[in-house]
């Protein structure tokens, strides 16, 4: 679909977890075209001296109501201003941007791996995968129980949810890669299992190492500083694991991604 800049009304803002809000935007055309991986680039409302837009993964889409949802962690100045918006406010938003998570027609298992606000695209991935009868698992880590964003789709689609928190207040104590490794090593056959990762770069780097070690296919969606979001500023390079024959060393997170095959790119801070 073509990219556009739209004036989008905020339909609702609700608390999703501690310092994380779910923002519902009225945008029928994006709601109808949205898939997991897509992102939008949101201008911080007038009165702010912040210069760049802020990119957010799409969290959910409701084509019937004509809305899309974003998950916004109020972590920095820009996201705090957005989290403080009210229903009826109108935001200047560029979308839909980026590529999407590929789905196999008949996967054995979809294994989602989320860290913190990296949970955002996985409701939409479950929506995209609703017709697939395969097993679905979610490994979801956060700082503590209060930072976890729970979803009704988990029970609707019989998702096996494995939680981990750094303070041990919910699920396994520690990082999410630990329980993921134990789970994968306990499987007899990993062919047809596909990993989908979104979260902090160190988590994605650990996920990549695990996927390569156990020879499991997978995709990650990366976050990166970006000034434009549509391929013009070239400020969001992602390093290729193998430079191309023509000397190309980088892809762009916004235009070539944000979703990449896990083996294709290097992940480092």
């Amino acid at each position, binding site marked *: 679909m073509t990219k*556009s*800049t739209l004036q989008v009304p905020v339909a609702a803002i609700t608390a999703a977890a501690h310092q994380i809000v779910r923002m519902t935007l009225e945008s029928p055309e994006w709601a109808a075209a949205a898939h997991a991986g897509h992102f939008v680039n949101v201008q911080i409302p007038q009165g702010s001296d912040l*210069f760049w837009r802020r990119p957010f993964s799409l969290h959910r889409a409701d084509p019937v109501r004509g809305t899309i949802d974003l998950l916004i962690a109020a972590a920095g100045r820009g996201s705090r201003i957005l989290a403080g918006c009210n229903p009826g406010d109108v935001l200047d938003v560029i979308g839909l941007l980026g590529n999407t998570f590929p789905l196999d027609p008949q996967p054995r298992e979809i294994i989602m791996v989320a860290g913190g606000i990296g949970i955002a695209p996985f409701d939409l991935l479950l929506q995209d995968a609703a017709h697939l009868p395969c097993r679905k698992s979610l490994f979801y880590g956060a700082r503590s129980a209060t930072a976890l964003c729970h979803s009704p789709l988990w029970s609707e689609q019989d998702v096996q949810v494995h939680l981990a928190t750094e303070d041990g207040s919910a699920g396994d104590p520690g990082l999410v890669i630990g329980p993921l490794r134990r789970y994968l090593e306990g499987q007899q056959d990993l062919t047809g299992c596909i990993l989908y990762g979104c979260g902090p770069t160190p988590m994605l780097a650990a996920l990549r190492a695990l996927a390569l070690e156990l020879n499991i296919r997978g995709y990650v969606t990366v976050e990166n500083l970006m000034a434009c979001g*549509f391929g013009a*500023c*070239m400020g*969001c390079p992602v390093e290729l694991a193998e430079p191309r024959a023509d000397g190309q*060393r980088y892809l762009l997170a916004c235009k070539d991604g944000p979703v990449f095959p896990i083996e294709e790119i290097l992940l480092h801070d």
Partner: protein
Amino acid sequence: MTDLSVRIGTLHLANPVLTASGTFGYGSEFADFMDLNRLGGLVTKTVTLEARPGNPPPRICETPAGMLNSIGLPNVGIDRFIAEKWPFLSTLNTPIIVNVAGRSIADFVAAVTALEAVPGIAAYELNYSCPNVKEGGLAFSSDARVAAEVTRQIRAVTRRPLIAKLTPNVTSISEIGRACEQAGADAVSAINTLVGMAIDIRSRKPRLASVTGGLSGPAIKPVALARVYELVRTLSIPVIGIGGIISAADALEFIIAGAAAVQIGTASFMHPGAAIEVVEGLEIWCRQEGITTLAELRGSLRL
């Protein structure tokens, strides 16, 4: 109806609003957002003789009313530019100005010579001033003798209009501008980015992998305007104003200071339709003010 057209040497622009190199890709990135044919002209991202991968990340950093960048001129090289980027650009009805850079004078001349084989290029903008390339780059526009020599050698291989893009990171921009004029440049464009730096105090690391980079955006507009005004007073060739322009009002400031045309740069990242909005804003303002040609405004600064 206001006539916004501009002549720069043999280059004829329907309006004075160009896109700035390095902020507008090769046009196609913006095709979803606007009718590209409404631009006064499109200046491409820099092309070099050989492909370049660009600098390692982080390449950009947000700053008050602007940003720092150190992109490093990633591009596919002249051959693939001609094969892959030019076919789309050649379908447009707006003048296409190809921005060219080189590591050495010979490299520069070879790049322009290769582009001479491509029909339809309206002009060349010579990137003498990228602060983010280790070799060459800045030297071309920080030393008047070097700027004159490279301009003279490029002038010898093309009849197309030459626009020398100047850096503000020098003691006297007008000295460099004069050297380019005397060596055969048809116009100058100014300013490129200002060298800047930012530090993450927690990690004590620079925000850019290359430590320093180029500052752009509204933060630099007053500096740009002063440099453009200085160039206008010194040179007899047209000056194209660049630096922090996000609105028609900003563009009017540069035109009143004497700029023949303007380029919209960083604004296009935040508002991909910014250049067209400036064109529309100029049309509306001129109509409201009863201005029929830009010549009435240009250099009309009252002192």
